């Protein structure tokens, strides 16, 4: 018997999004397979960060559908799931349940400044998953170990460097064991010498887990090594996608070529 073809973990079906008059996404469709590592690249304003924010439910969509694990994100079945009952906008409870599958790491870390490193990590598992403090702390220490920060468990965020803060933010998101991790320009706010320590953590994560990862980045060298697939965005659409070798060494589209040329001229490694 043939194994059934794996279903995509994320299905984005012709979504559109405008901020006022500015159309950020215009009928975008894309699928992501479980365990896939995706790099989203492109100029500012091309909509790549907006996709991550929409998946995290930080922005809504104007039209279209998103399915996570086969389940609608922004809609839910009418009549308590009866077939052909149609769809209605998702309730807060539905969004709450769907968000369990997704975690996000932000460009500016967004750590809670009034909580110690370990409390930043244990807070959500204790509040949203009913973990005991002991369970949450054991898990947090494992994660801190993984990101190389076990000795800073009792530190306050203000005592840490940017790279350290971002590693904590990654551990904090992982503590909820999401199936999908979203990384929004996680090294853009860091001093150049701190970028590598964060990228190392992400490499390790990619190797050691089968978490699906979506990465918006300007680190082309990292995108090249890290991603299974690279998507080049411009003006709210996917202009070109493919294996990293193809996109970076052999871009077909003129806009991709132009973008990569500019990035290299700006001193980013490819």
């Amino acid at each position: 018997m043939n194994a059934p073809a794996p279903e995509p973990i994320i299905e984005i079906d012709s979504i559109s999004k405008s901020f006022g008059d500015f159309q950020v996404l215009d009928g975008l469709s894309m699928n992501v397979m479980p365990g896939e590592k995706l790099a989203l690249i492109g100029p500012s304003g091309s909509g790549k960060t907006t996709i991550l924010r929409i998946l995290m439910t930080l922005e809504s969509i104007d039209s279209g559908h998103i399915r996570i694990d086969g389940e609608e994100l922004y809609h839910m079945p009418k009549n308590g799931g009866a077939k052909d009952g149609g769809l209605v906008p998702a309730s807060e409870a539905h969004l709450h349940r769907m968000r369990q599958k997704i975690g996000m790491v932000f460009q500016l870390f967004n750590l809670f400044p009034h909580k110690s490193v370990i409390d930043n990590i244990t807070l959500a598992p204790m509040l949203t998953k009913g973990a005991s403090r002991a369970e949450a702390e054991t898990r947090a220490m494992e994660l801190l170990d993984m990101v190389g920060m076990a000795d800073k468990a009792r530190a306050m965020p203000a005592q840490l460097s940017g790279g350290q803060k971002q590693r904590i933010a990654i551990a904090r998101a992982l503590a909820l064991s999401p199936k999908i991790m979203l990384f929004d320009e996680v090294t853009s706010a860091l001093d150049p010498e701190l970028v590598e320590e964060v990228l190392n953590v992400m490499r390790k994560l990619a190797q050691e887990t089968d978490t699906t990862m979506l990465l918006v980045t300007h680190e082309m060298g990292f995108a090249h090594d890290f991603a299974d697939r690279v998507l080049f965005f411009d003006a709210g659409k996917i202009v070109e996608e493919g294996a990293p070798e193809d996109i970076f060494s052999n871009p077909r589209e003129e806009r991709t070529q132009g973008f990569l040329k500019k990035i290299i001229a700006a001193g980013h490694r490819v």
Partner: protein
Amino acid sequence: MIDWSGYLGLILKGALVTVELTLMGCALALVMAFIAGLGRLSRHFALRALATAYIEFFRGTSIFVQLFWAYFVLPLFGFTLTPLQAGVLALGLNVGAYGAEVVRGAVLSIGKAQYEACVALNLTRYQRMRHIILPQAFLIMLPTFCNNAIELLKATAVVSLISLSDMTFEAQVVRAQTGSTLVPFGTILILYFLMALAISRFVRTLEKRLARGLDGVRV
């Protein structure tokens, strides 16, 4: 020669009433500030409207009038309050209306980034407010709360108008009985000042404690 010790005792007794009024008024004001301040940020129109009406009414009318209402008019509707209860009610509701705007402003000043981190960590609205936003916002409220508490302390003097024997009331009694103006009014001037100083010291200490670790220096 006047025997001042008895008269000073009278003023000190009044000072206790002032302290009592201030503490109870502040407690009520704090509760009202949070209820109305968070009410103004509610998703529900009715709660927002109710909170706004409360704030505008108590900021927009005089504390004298509010006190007279609490003491002289409410009994006409069947609610009779002692002078102390009427004083605490008027002071607490009045200062609470100002405090509500402090709460609202401080909550709004916590950046969008903190809200977004809470969504990404799947916290509920209540958990977000309780564990992330309010603890940070409270620190921002404190300096203005300190102002409000000192304002409340000084406003307690109005209760002497409804025959509550607070510090100002007793000073007037002493003045009437001794004919001396300088000693009773000089004494309460100093006492009010010391009480205000105690409030500001207390809040400053609280602020320092809560800010510990936030700037990366003190731990």
